[in-house]
């Protein structure tokens, strides 16, 4: 028994050296496998959530993400919706958009973006739309996050 344990111990120790080499030699392979087998993605609280629609304005487009209320279990009361305007090179000085994120055919809020001044104005038309949380220029265009609150 003692001998078997000893052999197992030394084998395990040698395997550790192999694990070190495999960790680095196979890093790309293992990383890709880990990502695909777990199906893990970035939390919508950071990625902005999946894109669910877009409005084509001929030279530029408005990209609409799904409203994010995701909690650890179930949904939260507070959330946001991310809207993007791109590409940056084709954006007019002033953009005015009406966004219907509930899909009921009615505008939930209107957004006016002054790209020159970097200023946004939100006009809520739905009580769950609260305020502008973030408005940032990124390399492809502008990104806004609008704070939402569930109303029962």
């Amino acid at each position, binding site marked *: 028994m*003692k001998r078997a*344990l*000893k052999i*197992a*111990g*030394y084998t*395990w*120790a*040698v*395997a*550790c*050296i192999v*694990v*070190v*080499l*495999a*960790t*680095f*030699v196979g*890093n*790309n392979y*293992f*990383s*890709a496998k*880990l*990502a695909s087998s*777990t*199906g*893990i*993605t*970035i*939390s*919508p*609280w*950071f*990625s*902005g959530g999946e894109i669910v629609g877009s409005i084509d304005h001929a030279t530029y487009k408005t990209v609409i993400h799904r409203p994010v209320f*995701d*909690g*650890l*279990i179930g949904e939260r009361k507070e959330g946001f919706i991310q809207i993007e305007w791109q590409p940056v090179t084709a954006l007019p000085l002033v953009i005015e958009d009406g966004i219907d994120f509930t899909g009921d055919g009615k505008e939930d809020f209107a957004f006016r973006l002054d790209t020159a001044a970097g200023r946004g104005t939100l006009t809520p038309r739905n009580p769950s739309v609260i305020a502008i949380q*973030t408005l*940032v*220029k*990124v*390399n492809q265009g502008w*990104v806004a996050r609008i704070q939402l609150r569930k109303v029962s």
Partner: protein
Amino acid sequence: MMKEHPPHAKTIEVRQSPGKSFLFALPMMLLTLMMMSGGKIPADPQRLFVFTVTYLFFNLLFFLMIHTGKTDRYRATAFITYAILFIVSFISHMFEARGSMSLSQEKILLCEVPFCHLVIPMTLIPAAFTKTIIFPGTITGGYASIASMFTIWIGASLSLGRGWCSWGCFFGGLDDAFSRILKKPVFRNINPRWTYLPWAVLLAVVLSAAAFLSPTYCTWLCPFKTVTEFEAVTSFKILVQTILFASLFIALVIVLPLLTKRRTQCSLFCPFGAMQGLTNRINAFDVRIDPDRCINCKRCVTACPTLSVTEESVRAGCPLISCMKCGTCMDVCPSGAVAFHVRGTPVAGNRNIKRMLFLYAAFLFLAIFSGGTIQDGLSRIIRLITTGSMI
């Protein structure tokens, strides 16, 4: 009471002649050459110079480890160099990519923030429940992707356990360095109850991250943001966060290690380190104290930079779960009672083989993981000297 001991018992046993040391170091030379070069020796003279310096640096240290039988001083030289050059390399990259160390809203919204292992404990519960990672980084591809860091963490946990904190972590070398500056500690006694603090921090950040779906330690506490990247101060909240993490850096990474000669950030605060202690249990290597050799001089208790050796643990024959396998205790032990050990094997006997197996796993990890960063850091310094700019 202190027992008598044979002089230089330990060193005689693990010290090797230059010829034998060279033979033992030869596989390391070949493996590091293969891994650090990726099979291609750089053609560009400056890159070749930096590669050669890095390669010789590591292999000289490894040779000396075998030849002298001492572990910690050579490990620390590599580990601290890594931490310093990691900062040089990281900051240069940040300036190159975005012109400053501060993290813009843009990078956060585009999910382009480099991922670091310290986030891992906070991601586990949200990942289990929502199949998502609560961090604005990339899953694969790009600089420091999440999947690649997880792979390295799994590899480190399986091969080294908490040895990661003395052989892998690119931050650990900072408090390690400051804990070595003074010859004697100004404050000797740290109440052992403080060693529960990292567990409390771990619990707090894991639960708060799950509740808020946000990496709370990174946002509010991580001291290492001071020397890597931090959010641009655009609100009062971010100002408070900045004051908090910068103060923690000064206190835990500089001042306290200096005054206590202990790695205070790593042993008294870091939540990742606490969690990593658990992986010491699923690892082939540990540190053991041979009761037949121990003369109860308590030098290991005084010297352990992580407070992992107590009088009880000496009696029990093994350090606490927080042991980072740094080798300090075995280097100071006058009777050779403390040694690296392979689980399943008897504590006494074959000490050199056990030490060599651990050193091969640990040093190889350090050399491969840090090799590229050290080369980049050195290149940046050469560029600074020759052109006046690191980028």
